[in-house]
């Protein structure tokens, strides 16, 4: 079997890579917002903040084969903030895991695309998320499996990526997993925190303080990098070099909830707010830029 070649290993230069990821991200944002608008529900704020992360992973960094979604050598991604299915499903469809047409069935009766991803039904989904704080332990388990196999025969050199929300980090399970990963020096594991500073009802720092967040991860035995989460050129080299590290890597991606839609940006109300027809039209226009 020929190994699918991600863009990151194709010899394309940085400008080409960034431009491609941007194109994909623009498409994902518009598609995700349309899905929420048409379904009358969803989580637009978190879809828009996580899109650049998803686009970078799926259209540059990760190695996978949509024709063989459970290929053992694939890089894994887990969207622990499972409510951002508008963005995730758009990404998976664009990556070829299922037909783009199917996105119109989002949350419709008997569709496999419900509000939170289901690996039993949707190719490309690694685990069923939705309750926050589940992705990290599972990612740690996959990373340990990869380490065991690499140790035995050097075969499983796949990488494991997981994205959590920031409010989500209030769940203790993340920190239990963080300790395991730090202890075992899981250098094949990369966490990208969608640090949009808002949770469901209010800013994270007004609800339960997360800061100093980078210090917390360092104290748990992780390498930490902080970047603008919408700066794809900043994200690419971190992902390119992730395997060269001796520890698991936490990328704190400073993002904007509702990114790209002026009236949604940084407003908790758009966590699960749905635009009306006029707002939708305006949003789609702004996302064209």
């Amino acid at each position, binding site marked *: 079997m020929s190994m699918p070649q991600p863009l990151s290993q194709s010899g394309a230069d940085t400008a080409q890579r960034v431009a491609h990821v941007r194109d994909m991200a623009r498409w994902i944002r518009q598609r995700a917002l349309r899905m929420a608008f048409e379904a009358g529900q969803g989580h637009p704020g978190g879809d828009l903040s996580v899109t650049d992360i998803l686009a970078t992973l799926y259209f540059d960094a990760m190695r996978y084969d949509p024709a063989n979604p459970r290929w053992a050598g694939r890089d894994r991604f887990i969207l622990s903030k499972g409510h951002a299915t508008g963005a995730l499903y758009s990404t998976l469809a664009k990556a070829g895991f299922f037909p783009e047409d199917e996105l119109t069935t989002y949350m419709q009766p008997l569709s496999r695309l419900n509000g939170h991803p289901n690996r039993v039904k949707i190719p490309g989904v690694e685990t069923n998320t939705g309750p926050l704080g589940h992705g990290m332990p599972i990612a740690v388990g996959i990373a340990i499996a990869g380490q065991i196999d690499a140790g035995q025969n050097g075969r499983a050199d796949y990488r494991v990526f997981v994205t959590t929300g920031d409010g989500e980090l209030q*769940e203790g399970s993340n920190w239990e997993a963080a300790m395991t990963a730090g202890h075992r020096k899981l250098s094949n594991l990369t966490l990208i925190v969608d640090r949009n500073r808002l949770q*469901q009802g209010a800013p994270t720092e007004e609800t339960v303080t997360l800061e100093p967040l980078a210090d917390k991860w360092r104290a748990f035995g992780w390498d930490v990098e902080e970047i603008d989460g919408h700066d794809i050129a900043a994200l690419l080299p971190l992902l390119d070099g992730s395997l060269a590290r001796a520890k698991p890597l936490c990328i704190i991606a400073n993002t904007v909830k509702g990114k790209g839609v002026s009236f949604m940006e940084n407003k908790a109300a758009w966590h699960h707010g749905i635009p009306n027809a006029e707002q939708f039209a305006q949003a789609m226009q702004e996302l064209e830029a």
Partner: protein
Amino acid sequence: MSAAAPQTGLFDCRDAYVATLEALGAQNSSIVAVVNDSVGSSKLGKFREKFPERLINVGIAEQNMIGVGAGLANGGKVAFVSGASCFLTGRSLEQVKADVAYSQANVKLCGISSGVAYGELGPTHHSIEDVAWLRTMGNIDIIVPADPWETEQAIRHAAATEGPVFIRISRMGVPALERPTDAQFQIGKAEVLHAGDDAAILANGTVVCRALEAAKTLAAEGIQARVVNMSSMSPIDEAAILSAAQTGAIVTAEEHSVRGGLGGAVAEIIAQHTPCRLKILGFAGFQPTGSAEFLMEQAGLTADHIAASVRKLLDR
């Protein structure tokens, strides 16, 4: 003072819950609310405005939330711990067991948007296992109110009683049920809402109004089906169940799994005392995508299907 909703239309029982909690909170400064980033979904914004220091938001951390509730109870507070029922019970099941039930802590678990209220958000967000899980613990009062009045009574019961209580609070619209003016809620007591001896429909929560409709349809056909509101799931009214078994045919209907909920409880009791024909209506497992109403229809939790189930048991 009654904080119950007016008498017409459909009601979101969360409104009766928060109105009652605000009224009780004004009388009793020991009452506190504990939430998990769920001020909005629990409709506790007004409670927070009135009693800011008595609204404790622990963030997205349900295991912590239950433990903090138990600690508050230890410190003399009456802790109403409130969050989406799926996470409140499922995520924190051991905290509920060890810190609340086994420790007999004075914690009131308010499971918001129970059942399939979250429809399209899928099985992670459905809470159709909660009654089964908590019922096995034995020493926690479990109430599944059918309408705003009963929700208010359940909250009042919880506030007035020392010890753990779990109340399922749906957001699905339900009518205010007709009751005699001297109606009283009593934990452990079922409520006969429609008389009949040909068969019995035992229901709770959002399904009670559908059971009543079914009974009306059946009555027009000459079948007198008793409708019993089994809002008190623990302790459960064994006498009411055994009396229902005397009709020879019981249909149970609940917005819950068919395993271990009302149907399971009824089966446990009648099988040991008065076996009779039994049909359990509810959800058979993880549900597909669909709105709450769509899922209720698919599971047969409609007046029509309840009536058909009674006919079938009676071979009519």
